[in-house]
């Protein structure tokens, strides 16, 4: 750890300008996450701070109480009141100072104990539990020290987080009571079928758009019935209409079908998602007017209320979209992304490569030809240099994110990389890569994660039996460093000191790392191959040294299973995401996360760094992909269109595109700059667990549970677009059905699901998976 530069750490700790502008109370708002994540936290945070009370907090629906907007004074007051009640004066003071609230106000609030949202409904109780959960979080943060708290707070300007419209939903109880409105339960079916009839009779061009209403309306009407304890009506309502819903909502419907009692609504996550976030629909103005007129004519207040309160209708001018266009974009848990959500500028360009010093390059030549023809080589080196000098207009400023300085060994590695690159195979539809498959045999324990080093010298497997196993796939065996006593005997001046510190006796092809206490779901090598990250069901991320093959740090932050982790392409930072619905950015030398990216409505299942290290993409079980800005923690892109949990992500090497794979077996391609879907690759019949672009980005390889590796023509996908200005402006895409033309090859394994893919520096494709006899 000492090897890591000190500087970036400092920079990260101090609050960045953006974040500083807003008066942010340190503990409460941003890290506390937007409401949707709160329920998970409520359970999660039980342990550290406030002991007994918090632990006893039920999986309550405390969410919106923690509404992050500083303007939401009532919430703050509630929190303060809570702090006071529990004699946490220090935290209270800090909070109050930060929030610039006056003592009187707080006192005034204290006089009306029920709080804003507790109007005589069960909300009172939920408010309390919500407060408790929050409180425990606050306490935890305070315990961690002010500095840590500050660094953690540097996260998101809350209003933007997730693009989930939470601002206007002050409280759980308010949301709950929104369901309180009593319509005649018997009439619900009538309402729904009335609307259905209306939509089915609408003009073709509007029908597709208005059909989007079915699902959210169905869900909310059902929930209303359940909430108001009309069980039988709810049941028959569900029976009658659930068959009409699009098949991609099946999973959620299954959850809903189990939800038949008011008591169940507490703590049901899917339920909470629906309550706390508005379902986003994108509808053209004409269609919307049509709907509005219809509902007003019919005096259909029930539906109108739902539309008003639970749906966010994103109205656009212009032609209504076609069924295909809609189908391409919907499917996520909370509807489509709002258009504003994808408007922020993203610096997707690559960072300038550091120039490699001449002496090193000379050494390179020496290695290559002993004859000594330095002149011949020189022009080439210059050309290389000039190429890297060009600044990509879309690239972020070089120092936007503080990055660790290059060490000598890193430079050596870069040179190796360049050397290899000259021998790289130019891939294309005519020249497909060879695929070498590494099969894990006898993996009875269950292989759950694989990673390969960038230079393809080591391969790591994470297993369900909590072990992490590292293999060397080159003749060079894995050796660990000698013990301290032996090290002291070594002549430190000798040239081969790096060789001498290694203990020959420990050389072996396989090293097993023990430490986790649950299945290891993600592994990642550091770019310099000195460290290894693994994350596990036990809620920790562990950093292992590949010099000593021991665990260095266990990062505890996620209290629930951590599904994925990855090192930044420049090392030092890493990201993790887990069941607690947040992704966290860490630096290896901080035991607390630097950023918490909150906004997903379900588990964060996979995380990837952008090649320029300024952005992080996360895929989630809520069927969306989000792109986060590392600098300020903002969510800058939300991609919807998948119909199942996302399980793989890959950035193209030039940083412009993102490929995502999900359980629906489809691979979707996104233009990051425009925030648009640009391609859909159909072919896999099962979850796509692995995606990788070739080194030059010509080929996209995908590996799946259906035991195949498929190769796709990435060049062709991307060259077809860029022309249509209209689509860029409106975001309405028309995807060509050309998956079959883009598919360059399908390679079946015997019975091995493909769970990892890796292109070597020479563009040889390595695939791996565990043989699973049927």
């Amino acid at each position: 750890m000492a090897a890591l530069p000190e500087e970036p750490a400092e920079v990260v700790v101090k609050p960045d300008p953006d974040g500083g502008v807003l008066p942010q109370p340190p503990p409460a708002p941003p890290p506390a996450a937007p409401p949707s994540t709160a329920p998970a936290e409520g359970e999660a945070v039980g342990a550290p701070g406030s002991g007994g009370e918090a632990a006893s907090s039920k999986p309550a629906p405390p969410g919106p109480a923690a509404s992050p907007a500083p303007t939401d004074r009532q919430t703050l007051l509630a929190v303060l009141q809570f702090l006071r009640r529990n004699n946490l004066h220090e935290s209270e003071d800090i909070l109050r100072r930060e929030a610039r609230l006056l003592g009187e106000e707080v006192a005034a609030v204290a006089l009306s104990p029920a709080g804003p949202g507790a109007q005589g409904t069960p909300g009172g109780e939920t408010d309390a539990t919500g407060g408790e959960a929050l409180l425990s979080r606050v306490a935890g943060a305070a315990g961690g020290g002010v500095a840590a708290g500050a660094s953690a707070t540097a996260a998101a300007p809350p209003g933007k987080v997730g693009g989930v419209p939470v601002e206007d939903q002050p409280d759980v109880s308010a949301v709950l009571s929104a369901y309180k409105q009593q319509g005649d339960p018997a009439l619900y079916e009538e309402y729904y079928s009335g609307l259905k009839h209306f939509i089915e009779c609408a003009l073709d061009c509007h029908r597709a758009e208005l059909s989007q209403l079915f699902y959210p309306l169905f869900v909310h009407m059902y929930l209303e019935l359940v909430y108001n304890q009309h069980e039988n009506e709810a049941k028959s309502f569900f029976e009658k209409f659930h068959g009409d819903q699009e098949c991609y909502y099946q999973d959620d419907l299954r959850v809903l079908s189990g939800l038949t009692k008011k008591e169940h609504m507490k703590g049901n996550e899917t339920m909470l998602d629906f309550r706390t976030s508005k379902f986003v629909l994108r509808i053209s103005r004409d269609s919307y007017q049509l709907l509005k007129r219809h509902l007003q004519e019919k005096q259909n207040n029930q539906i109108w209320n739902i539309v008003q309160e639970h749906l966010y209708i994103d109205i656009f001018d212009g032609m209504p979209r076609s069924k295909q266009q809609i189908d391409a974009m919907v499917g996520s848990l909370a509807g489509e992304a709002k258009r504003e959500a994808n408007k922020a500028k993203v610096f997707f360009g690559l960072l300038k490569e550091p120039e490699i010093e001449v002496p090193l390059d000379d050494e390179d030549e020496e290695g290559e030809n002993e004859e000594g023809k330095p002149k011949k080589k020189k022009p080439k080196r210059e050309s290389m240099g000039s190429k890297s000098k060009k600044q990509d207009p879309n690239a972020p400023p070089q120092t936007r994110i503080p990055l660790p300085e290059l060490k000598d060994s890193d430079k050596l590695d870069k040179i190796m990389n360049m050397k290899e690159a000259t021998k790289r195979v130019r891939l294309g539809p005519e020249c497909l890569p060879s695929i070498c498959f590494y099969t894990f045999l006898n993996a009875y324990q269950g292989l759950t994660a694989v990673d390969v080093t960038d230079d393809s010298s080591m391969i790591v497997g994470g297993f369900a039996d909590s072990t992490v196993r590292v293999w060397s796939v080159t003749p060079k065996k894995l050796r660990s460093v000698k013990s301290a006593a032996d090290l002291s005997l070594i002549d430190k001046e000798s040239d081969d000191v790096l060789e001498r510190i290694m203990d020959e006796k420990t050389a072996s092809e396989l090293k097993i790392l023990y430490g986790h206490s649950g299945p290891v779901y993600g592994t990642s090598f550091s770019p310099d191959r000195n460290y290894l990250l693994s994350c596990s069901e036990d809620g920790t991320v562990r950093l292992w040294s590949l010099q000593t093959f021991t665990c260095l740090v266990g990062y505890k932050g996620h209290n629930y299973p951590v599904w994925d982790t990855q090192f930044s392409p420049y090392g030092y930072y890493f990201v993790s995401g887990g069941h607690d619905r947040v992704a966290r950015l860490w630096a290896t030398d901080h035991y607390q996360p630097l950023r918490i990216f909150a906004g997903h409505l379900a588990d964060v299942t996979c995380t990837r760094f952008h090649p320029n290290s300024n952005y992080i993409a996360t895929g989630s079980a809520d069927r969306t992909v989000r792109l986060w800005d590392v600098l300020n923690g903002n969510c800058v892109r939300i991609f919807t269109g998948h119909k199942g949990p996302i399980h793989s992500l890959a950035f193209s090497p030039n940083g412009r595109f993102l490929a995502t794979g999900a359980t629906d077996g489809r691979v979707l391609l996104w233009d990051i700059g425009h925030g648009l879907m640009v391609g859909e690759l159909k072919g896999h019949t099962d979850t796509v667990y692995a995606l990788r672009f070739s080194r030059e980005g010509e080929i996209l390889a995908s590996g799946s549970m259906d035991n195949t590796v498929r190769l796709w023509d990435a060049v062709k996908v991307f060259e077809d677009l860029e022309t249509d200005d209209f689509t860029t402006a409106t975001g309405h895409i028309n995807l060509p059905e050309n998956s079959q033309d883009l598919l360059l090859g399908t390679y079946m394994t015997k019975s091995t699901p493909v769970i990892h893919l890796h292109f070597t520096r020479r563009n040889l494709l390595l695939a791996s998976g565990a043989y699973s006899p049927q």
Partner: protein
Amino acid sequence: MAEEKKLKLSHTLLPAESMKVMAEAVGIAQVPEETCQLLADEVSYRIKEIAQDALKFMHMSKRRKLTTGDVDFALKLKNVEPLYGFHAQEFIPFRYASGGGRELYFYEEKEVDLSDIINTPLPRVPLDVCLKAHWLSIEGTQPAIPENPPPAPKEQQKAEATEPLKSTKPGQEENGPLKGQGQSAAAPDGKGKEKKAPVLEGAPLKLKPRSIHELSVEQQLYYKEITEACVGSCEAKRAEALQSIATDPGLYQMLPRFSTFISEGVRVNVVQNNLALLIYLMRMVKALMDNPTLYLEKYLHELIPAVMTCIVSRQLCLRPDVDNHWALRDFAARLIAQICKNFSTTTNNIQSRITKTFTKSWVDEKTPWTTRYGSIAGLAELGHDVIKTLILPRLQVEGERVRAIVEGPVVSNIDKIGADHVQSLLLKHCAPVLAKIRPPPDNQDSYKADFGSLGSLLCTHVVKARAQAAMQAQQVNRTTLTITQPRPTLTLSQAPQGPPRAPSIIKVPSSITLPVQTLVSGRPSTPTQPSPPPTKYIVMSSTSGSSASQQVITFSSSPLGTASSPISTTAAGVQPVVKLVSTAQTAPSATVTGNLQKYIVVSLPPPGEGGKAGGPPGAQLSPSAPPGLALPGLAPAGTPTIKQEPGDSPQAPPGTPSPFGKANGAQGGVAGSPQPSQ
């Protein structure tokens, strides 16, 4: 994604009774109905919730199967103590019980004695995880190596073969036509079909890219090795080669070559009357058929004529009076039957065409006995229905013909042998069928009336068949023994590898009147012929007396076997097929006309499969397990279990199969089941 799939979700609930049962299990006797209902609702909901969470863990573990571990983790998420004791990798067998109007599913937990566990030897440590690399693809093409799946899965091969629009080679007939290939009477009606497949003109014919027919160097080497081994002289190599053909998944590309090899090989060797090679080639066909990754339909047009030739050809060997070409015919007949079973459809009509071919050549007056035998064998193998409709009605005619030869003036020895064979074949196949379709009272006279000269023989056989069936019916569990048509087994081996005591068992009991000779094999006479390995036949016979004496005759296929004249050989055993009749049998041997002995030739199934009917399909010989001649149950010679009946599989009693030697040589082809000699 847009397709509307109607979802079927319902509110499934646990029954309230379950709650009651569970409550009782923990000692709460009186639970009100209402409480049960509430509990059931709640528990159902929680279970669903946990199941949905467990699914999440399954997905993240990149598995398709939900395990108990996933459920444990899901419980842990909810802060619930996981269930201990459910750590099976596979599903947990729940047992069901009912009684008193209640139904119960429970997990059986056996009480285990600790000392049992301690005292049992430790199981072997499972292998550790290891990493194995192979080429999934080399520059875009997938190499055909065992690590990769077969290049064209069987379904695809089938689709290619059966869906004409997708056919790759327009010139190739898909229907498996019977092309008249050789000089034989194989398929006279097939020739008209040899036209090009109908090309659909005008239709948007989507031709798939032709499959590449260049073989890689490795494949060429493999092909060379395999074909050489298959027809070469080393039996061990052949066994290995056939094994490879029968199991290797990557042969799809080479299939056309193999098919041509076989068809050409048969064509040439029939002309040269090279029985050994024909047998080898048939064994190759068998191996190809056995390969689970190959779909042969596209090559039937070459294979069927070849196999048919081996069944019905007039002459298959140089000395038809001595050589056992009958076994080859039987073997090939079984192959044809298998082909029919596997590939016959209503479009290609393989079975009906084959049946027609056989019938035609059988009905013909001038057909030689060899062809006649082949036709009947081919028909008989096609199953009981065919026997019933085609063979039984002709029994009378055929019996007359046989009688004319056997009882009439000696025309030629060859004809006589042929007639004998035909007779025994008819008896063997018809008796079981008759036993099934004729009502029990078996009257010699009525049989005679119905079936002419064969009647009386048939009658005794039917009686035996009934006895056999009755006996088998008693053996309730051994259902495998009811298989009446053993799968083809053709065993060959060479003399030098024979068991050491082959010559020593030759005993000549004094009571035997028949000449017994031992023919020592000599050198092959014709150098042009790939030397047929010297063959030996071991003939066992026991007299009807109780002496249980045995007699072993070793024949040689060698033309130079000068020690005996062919005539005497015939007289001795009539043919190298031997039948053992023990005295304990119910069927009186007195009814057997002609020779006093019956001879059985039984092949020794490989040790592991001694008990199975018909033996294994693999016709290989390995030096370690010589499937030579075996007489299961012979060792305790007088035991009543020895009942070798025609058409019946050797029911090996647990007694040690005594390898008396091997059926050696090319002509020693012996079926897996006992054959009657008469």
